[in-house]
C-alpha cells in the first residue's frame, strides 16, 4: 500500500507504464545491499533511495578523507574523518526519510559476508578492489542472490549483471587476481556506471526490460562510446562452474 505522500513523491515514475503503482509497491518491499559507500556506492545509493527502495544496507569500513571528495558525492567537507556509512546514511535520510538505511562499518570478509547479505534481494558491487569483489561474487552465487557488478578507472567503467546459476559471473571472464593499486578516477565515471547499476537493480526488482546478463558493457568517457561484449558462462569457473552450482 502506498501512502498519499508516496503517491505524490513517486508520481513521475509511477507514470512510467513499466512501473506503475504495482511496481512502486515492489520497490518499497525490496531490500538492497550496497557493498561500498564510495565513488560507485554514492550514485547507486542516491538513485535507489530516491526511487523508493524499502531498505538499503550500506557496508563500508572506511572513513571519509579529503581525497575522496572528487568522486564520492555522498560525502562532503564537513564529513571528513567520519565513518563513510554514517555520512552516507545522514544524506540518504535527508533525501528520503521513508527509506530504511542501515549502516554497517565492517570490512567484508569470507567469514562475515554470508551474514551481511542474508535476507536481501540483491547485492550491488560498489567496491574498489578485486579481492572483495570475488568474495561478493562467490557469496552471491552460493546464496543465489543477484549481483550487480560495476568498476571504474580514469574516464572508463564497466557494468555487468549476474544472475547466479543462470548467467556468467565475474570470475567467468577474469583470469585471476590483479595487484591492488591506487587507481586514477574522475567523479563523472562512477556517476555514469553507478547510475547504470542502479537502473539494472530497479529493472531486476520490477522484472522489466533487458538486463546486462552475459553482457559486459564498457563505457569510455573520453571517446563517449559504449561497447558491449558477450561473456559466456565458463563451465570450469571456480566460482560458478560445475559442480559448485
Amino acid at each position: 500500500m502506498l501512502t498519499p505522500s508516496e503517491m505524490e513523491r513517486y508520481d513521475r515514475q509511477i507514470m512510467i507504464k513499466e512501473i506503475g503503482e504495482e511496481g512502486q509497491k515492489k520497490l518499497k518491499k525490496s531490500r538492497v545491499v550496497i557493498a561500498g559507500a564510495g565513488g560507485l556506492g554514492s550514485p547507486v545509493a542516491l538513485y535507489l533511495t530516491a526511487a523508493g527502495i524499502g531498505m538499503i544496507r550500506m557496508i563500508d569500513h572506511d572513513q571519509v578523507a579529503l581525497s575522496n571528495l572528487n568522486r564520492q558525492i555522498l560525502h562532503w567537507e564537513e564529513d571528513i574523518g567520519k565513518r563513510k556509512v554514517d555520512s552516507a546514511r545522514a544524506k540518504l535520510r535527508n533525501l528520503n526519510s521513508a527509506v530504511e538505511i542501515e549502516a554497517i562499518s565492517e570490512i567484508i570478509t569470507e567469514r562475515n559476508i554470508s551474514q551481511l547479505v542474508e535476507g536481501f534481494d540483491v547485492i550491488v558491487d560498489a567496491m574498489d578492489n578485486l579481492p572483495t569483489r570475488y568474495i561478493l561474487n562467490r557469496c552471491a552465487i552460493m546464496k543465489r542472490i543477484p549481483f550487480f557488478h560495476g568498476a571504474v578507472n580514469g574516464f572508463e567503467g564497466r557494468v555487468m549483471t549476474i544472475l547466479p546459476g543462470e548467467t556468467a559471473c565475474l570470475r567467468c571472464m577474469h583470469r585471476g587476481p590483479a595487484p591492488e593499486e591506487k587507481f586514477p578516477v574522475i567523479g563523472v565515471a562512477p556517476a555514469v556506471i553507478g547510475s547504470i547499476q542502479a537502473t539494472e537493480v530497479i529493472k531486476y526488482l520490477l522484472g522489466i526490460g533487458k538486463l546486462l546478463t552475459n553482457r559486459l558493457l564498457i563505457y569510455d568517457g573520453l571517446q563517449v562510446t559504449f561497447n558491449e561484449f558477450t561473456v559466456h558462462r565458463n563451465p570450469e569457473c571456480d566460482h560458478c562452474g560445475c559442480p559448485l552450482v
Partner: protein
Amino acid sequence: MSFGITRSLGKEWDMAINIHVHTTHRQFTNGLQVVAVEGTTVGECLNQLVKQFPGMEKALFAKKDKLLNTIEIYVNHASAYPNELIKPVKDGDEIHLITMLAGG
C-alpha cells in the same frame, strides 16, 4: 586530441584482422586505436602486434605465452577467455584488447 588512426598492412580491411588497442596501451602503438595484423589464432595476431610495437609485449604478457591477469581479450565482441591465445581467428575478425578495471 584524437587518435583515430589505423595502421593497415596495405591490404583491404576485410583481408586482415583488426586489433583494437585499449586507451592505456596506445602509448605503445604511437597512438593507434586499431592495428591490422594477420594470423590464424589470437596468439599469432598478438605476436604480430608485438613485432610491430615491441612495447606491447610488457603491456600484455607476464611471460611468453602467458597473458597478464589484467588483460581481457574479446573476438568479435565475445569473450575469448579461457585459452585465449589458441582461439582461431579469420580475416575480417575484430580483436579487442581490454584491461580489467577494479576501481570503485
